[in-house]
């Protein structure tokens, strides 16, 4: 079952990073990164977008939920730069607030993914043996699970459970849910599905690093397993993880759009780009402006993240250095 591009996050081509001398690493990275103009422009765009999202209440001309029943689905004008939606709400304001939700969701989801995927991948690769086998069996099983189905079930479960259970824990979760516009389910579901890819990448990297000299040396001077994993190995596998994040964010934004199409997105009237697109698609022939602006915003943002990911990868990957 596809959300074709959404779900098929193929194993990211493994990046072999030799251990760079630490002091110059960052400067070198930045210099190489800046040489890639598309990536640089993308990075600037993303920074601006994040600023817009943070400053949404200041920038947006209207509150996102402000309806104007006298001006329903009017086209772009000087009063409403991008027109209004089916309840007479300003599209530009909704787009700005929508950036907030979409970026917030993808960042949190990435955070969850890293939080789960990296330690599991580390442990699996570092210890090997039956630990590795056990973890890999679990990963294989979850890989074979249709992720859209998994997400829908988890979201419905959470949605239903939150509105019915009581108690301090449920109340805390409900609080998170409210502050994310009802997207807690999306966050949990995405985290549960996408950590697989990250953990696989990390495991592969660790397997390659485990027998390297500096690890053996550290072990010889009495470093504990935890120190080895987090102080010596982790810094050396950050690069592929960073690339995975850059490529993972578009995945999450797209998936949120797909879920909105199924009616499982944000809690109205909170806007998200995915929601705006899925509503716009249904009414495109009557009101094309409802699809065009969020569609373009999403496409440009995804483009930027993709170029950013490429840029990071090229800047980190020595084998691509002479491009």
């Amino acid at each position, binding site marked *: 079952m596809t959300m074709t591009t959404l779900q098929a996050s193929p194993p990211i081509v493994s990046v072999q990073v030799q251990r760079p001398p630490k002091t110059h690493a960052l400067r070198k990275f930045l210099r190489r990164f800046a040489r890639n103009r598309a990536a640089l422009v993308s990075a600037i765009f993303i920074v601006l977008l994040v600023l817009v999202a943070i400053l949404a209440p200041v920038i947006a001309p209207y509150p996102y939920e402000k309806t104007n029943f006298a001006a329903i689905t009017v086209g772009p004008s000087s009063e409403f730069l991008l027109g209004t939606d089916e309840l007479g709400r300003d599209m530009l304001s909704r787009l700005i607030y929508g950036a907030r939700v979409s970026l917030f969701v993808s960042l949190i989801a990435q955070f969850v993914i890293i939080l789960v995927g990296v330690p599991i991948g580390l442990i699996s690769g570092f210890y090997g043996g039956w630990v590795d086998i056990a973890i890999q069996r679990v990963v294989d099983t979850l890989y074979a699970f249709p992720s859209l189905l998994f997400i829908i079930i988890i979201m419905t479960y959470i949605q*239903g459970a939150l509105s019915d259970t009581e108690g301090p824990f449920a109340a805390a979760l409900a609080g998170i849910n409210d502050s994310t516009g009802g997207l807690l389910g999306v966050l949990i579901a995405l985290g549960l599905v996408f950590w697989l890819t990250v953990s696989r990448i990390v495991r592969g990297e660790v397997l390659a690093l485990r027998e390297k000299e500096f690890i053996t040396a550290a072990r010889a001077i009495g470093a504990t397993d935890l120190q080895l994993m987090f102080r010596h190995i982790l810094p050396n596998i950050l690069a592929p993880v960073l690339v995975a994040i850059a490529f993972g964010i578009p995945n999450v934004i797209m998936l949120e759009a797909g879920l909105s199409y199924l009616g499982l997105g944000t809690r109205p009237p909170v806007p998200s780009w995915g929601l705006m697109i899925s509503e716009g698609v249904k009414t495109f022939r009557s009101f094309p402006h409802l699809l065009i602006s969020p569609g373009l915003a999403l496409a440009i943002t995804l483009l930027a993240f993709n170029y950013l990911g490429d840029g990071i990868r090229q800047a980190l990957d020595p084998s691509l250095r002479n491009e």
Partner: protein
Amino acid sequence: MRTYILRRVLLMIPTMLAIFTITFFLMHATPGSPWDSTGRPLPLHVIESLNEKYGLDKPVLEQYFIFLWGIISRGDLGDSYTRAGQSVTDLLMQHFPISLQLGLVAMVFAVAGGLTLGLIGGIQPNSPVDYLTTFLSVIGISTPSYVVATLGVIVFALWLNWVPTGGWDGIFSERAVIPVIALGLGPMATIARYTRSAVVEASSQEYVRTAHAKGVSRRGVNLRHVLPNALISVVTVSGVSLVSVVTGSFFVESILNIPGIGRYFVTSVSARDYPVIIGTTLLYATLVMVMNLVIDLAYTALDPRIRYE
């Protein structure tokens, strides 16, 4: 080699069991019942007698073992709740082949297009052609399939009148054009990206430079040395995409009215049609595992250094 394949196949059994178990308990824990989908709320006593009729009044654990035993002893996945008189097996047999055909054609389109775009771009990295192909593939990745499908209908069916707005007439009918494009665009873009970076990487390798130095023509180098290397990562990416494409897409199938299996992944969950949820999940899992095995075997064919014991 044979023992390796056998071991992989045997390993699928516990995985399937685990997937079945997770799905079963997850779907029963999800609020909502399969009945009462017709708009008017059903009286409670009717819901109770329906539960009784379909054995949903028993404890969940008991239902689990009944269901499991049905699969093991008779290969029976039960009957759909929302499709009167149809067994889940019938339903899969009827709708999966349609998604499979569409998916295979879409994949051919994706691999052909993706390889071409990727090669064109990768051979001349950072040239204007490269920028153009990269831009195209990023657009392909960043457009949701339902936007592609909707715009496809509007442009090809309603404006140009080239094809009908939807439906299914077999894979060789004109109706298959829009779904193939909508399904294939994403994988094509992904394949193009991976091909490009594999080609760039391979071109910088020692042996390719040696071949150049020996005076082998550019095209000769590309065909003999660069392409096979690029193929390995393309096989991996295509394998992953293939599974998701042949199991159909909810969006493409709903918008283009294709009677494939893809929309059942979603509608069965919305309708709480438990047997169909299980059936589609197991189908998907089987395909993923078989495909993984095929990919691993393909590696050995492409790279003689890889051997499985």
